[in-house]
């Protein structure tokens, strides 16, 4: 029988809906004590704060300072995007390792500061990119490393979903999210490409619009496509649009298609499902491994062993740079070098 070191993990804010998944996974672990705090603000009619903590097996703590005073081994930050830096800096000063929800931050300056803060305190900073842990992606990486695809020259990625729910209005408030579909959905695909190619993006061009969900009157882009060139000459397209209709039976999905001189692979890690019909129309019963659980396992193992996990803060910063370059490209109408 193996034993593991008991850990105390704090969840800082329940603003991101992924907090529910992380809380469920962590609270099911026998050797982990889960604390949580939720500074707000809360959208009307939503269960947040102590109520949310009670529903998800989390011990609620009054505020961030009180939580950090309990000296957690690590924290998971699920705050609004613009709050990531401050919470990371507070946590790292308190000596806690950090798993931060994506995007790592909303400016390159903030992202660099977060990486520096973790380094200065000698703690881990990991970026929450669960798709890295999809078997479809690890299989793709293995094939590429084995040379089955030859030399990669062209990549197409999509990450399309429904516009985030009204219960989390901060997603479409640029002062708290940093932007719309570009901020929400470019980074996952950019991260997979970063891991696959092992090189950062070189030049970014982007176009966006606000036709989808124009009825919601949000102040951010809802449709967007980003064109990226990498130093090796690889060209890539990333479609980040919130184009999954509300009537669809599932949240959306992510695809990555990689073409090499000797082979091609397309992955669709969220495609596995049983389909059918229920009283409301189309039915989608997804199945497959819990990628959040794999990501949490990686984080906790790194916390316990002191090794450096992936995806780390540095890749969080490199992939955020694709987003901020895309935002500058939209503003200028021109490609932006990195």
């Amino acid at each position, binding site marked *: 029988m193996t034993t593991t070191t008991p850990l105390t993990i704090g969840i800082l804010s329940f603003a991101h809906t992924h907090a529910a998944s992380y809380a469920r996974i962590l609270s099911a672990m026998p050797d982990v004590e889960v604390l949580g705090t939720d500074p707000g603000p809360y959208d009307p009619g939503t269960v947040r704060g102590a109520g949310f903590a009670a529903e998800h097996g989390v011990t609620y703590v009054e505020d961030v300072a009180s939580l950090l005073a309990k000296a957690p081994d690590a924290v998971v930050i699920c705050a609004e995007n613009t709050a990531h830096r401050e919470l990371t800096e507070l946590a790292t000063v308190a000596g806690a390792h950090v798993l931060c929800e994506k995007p790592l931050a909303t400016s390159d300056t903030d992202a660099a500061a977060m990486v520096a803060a973790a380094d200065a305190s000698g703690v881990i900073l990991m970026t929450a990119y669960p798709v890295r842990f999809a078997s479809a992606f690890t299989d793709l990486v293995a094939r590429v490393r084995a040379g089955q695809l*030859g*030399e990669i*020259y*062209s990549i*197409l990625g*999509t990450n*399309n979903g429904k516009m985030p729910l009204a219960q989390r209005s901060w997603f479409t408030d640029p002062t708290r999210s940093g932007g719309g579909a570009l901020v929400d959905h470019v980074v996952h695909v950019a991260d997979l490409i970063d891991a696959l190619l092992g090189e950062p993006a070189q*030049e970014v*061009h*982007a*176009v*966006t*619009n606000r*036709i*989808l*969900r*124009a*009825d919601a009157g949000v102040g951010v882009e*809802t*449709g*967007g*496509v980003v*064109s990226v*060139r990498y130093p090796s*000459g*690889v*060209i*890539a*397209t990333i*479609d980040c*649009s919130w*184009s*999954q*209709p509300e*009537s*669809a039976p599932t949240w959306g999905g992510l695809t990555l298609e990689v*073409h*090499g*001189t*000797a*082979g*091609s692979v397309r992955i669709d890690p969220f495609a596995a499902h049983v389909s059918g019909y229920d009283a409301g129309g189309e039915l989608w019963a997804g199945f497959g491994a819990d990628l959040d659980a794999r990501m949490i396992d990686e984080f906790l193992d790194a916390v316990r062993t002191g090794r450096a996990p992936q995806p780390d803060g540095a890749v969080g910063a490199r992939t955020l740079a694709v987003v901020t370059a895309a935002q500058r490209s939209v503003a200028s*109408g*021109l*490609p932006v070098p990195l």
Partner: protein
Amino acid sequence: MSAPRVGLIGAGGISGVHAAGWRALGADVVVHSEHGAHALADTFGFRTADTLTELWPQVDLVDIVTPTATHAELALAAIAAGKHVICEKPLARTSVEAAAVVGAAEAAGVRVFPAHVVRYFPEYVAARDAIRAGRIGTVAVARFRRMSAAPKADWFFDEARSGGIVLDQMIHDLDQAEWLAGPVARVFARSTAKAGDGGRVASAAVLLTHTSGAISHVYGVWGHPGLRFTSSFEIAGDAGLLRYDMARSDTVRVQLGGPADAGGYLPATDPSESPYAAELADFWAAIESGTQASVAGTDGVRAVALAEAVLASAASGVPVDLPADPADSAHSSTEGSPR
């Protein structure tokens, strides 16, 4: 409808599906080609003509299926001989040449039809009908994707002769982007080509901004020899989404013993409802009745102009603006001006 008398000029890769289409229409076909005319004629029971001079008196229209760079010269010769012209896409290697063909046909009182066959593929027709019926609301984001094993003939990779993947393959989806989402105002493009162990490969990735505010991305790959032909699209509107992926079509499943399937350059189609036969029938009906077909000569000019903007953006690295009204480009002499 009478049987058309057709001069099929060229006997290369695409000639077989055109020949089958003409045979289905009961056409009287005479083949003229530098290479392969007799083999093609024998296969389909057609006759041959050794020279264009010999061909003209035997036909009412020509169907040009030669390499791209020869399209305009052959089309102009046919028009001068008073023949209607059906021409494989692209209508010409340049929009200037394409516009000259359309202008010459107008002056001579004959018809020109560029063979943008994807307008006859039923999945794209169904999408257009659904959009026009308002089923997905206002188009916001459109995605077009097309790939196959790279063609083997050298001229496909010779930019001067073919325009490469952009003018030969992607032009289908550039045409679709405007057919389904309206005129394009701005183009940004990247392209790449590489020599691999199995032959040359190429890819182009294009962002389009439509005058409506919609955005499209168009993605093309000529890949390794094992890459199967597939095309797909997704059109997201503010009230719904349309999706088609040939790779997910499931009408027939066949698994045979023997060597594994390789890739291919052309899509598999329903032989009883061939889009190639459908386009030739539509063109012939339009000629006979004097009505419009689903593709006009000016559409062929516009598609080449759009492809030229793609090439210009890929070469310059900056976006290229296009005249907003497709009709404007029919007689324009520019390929779009870099910003």
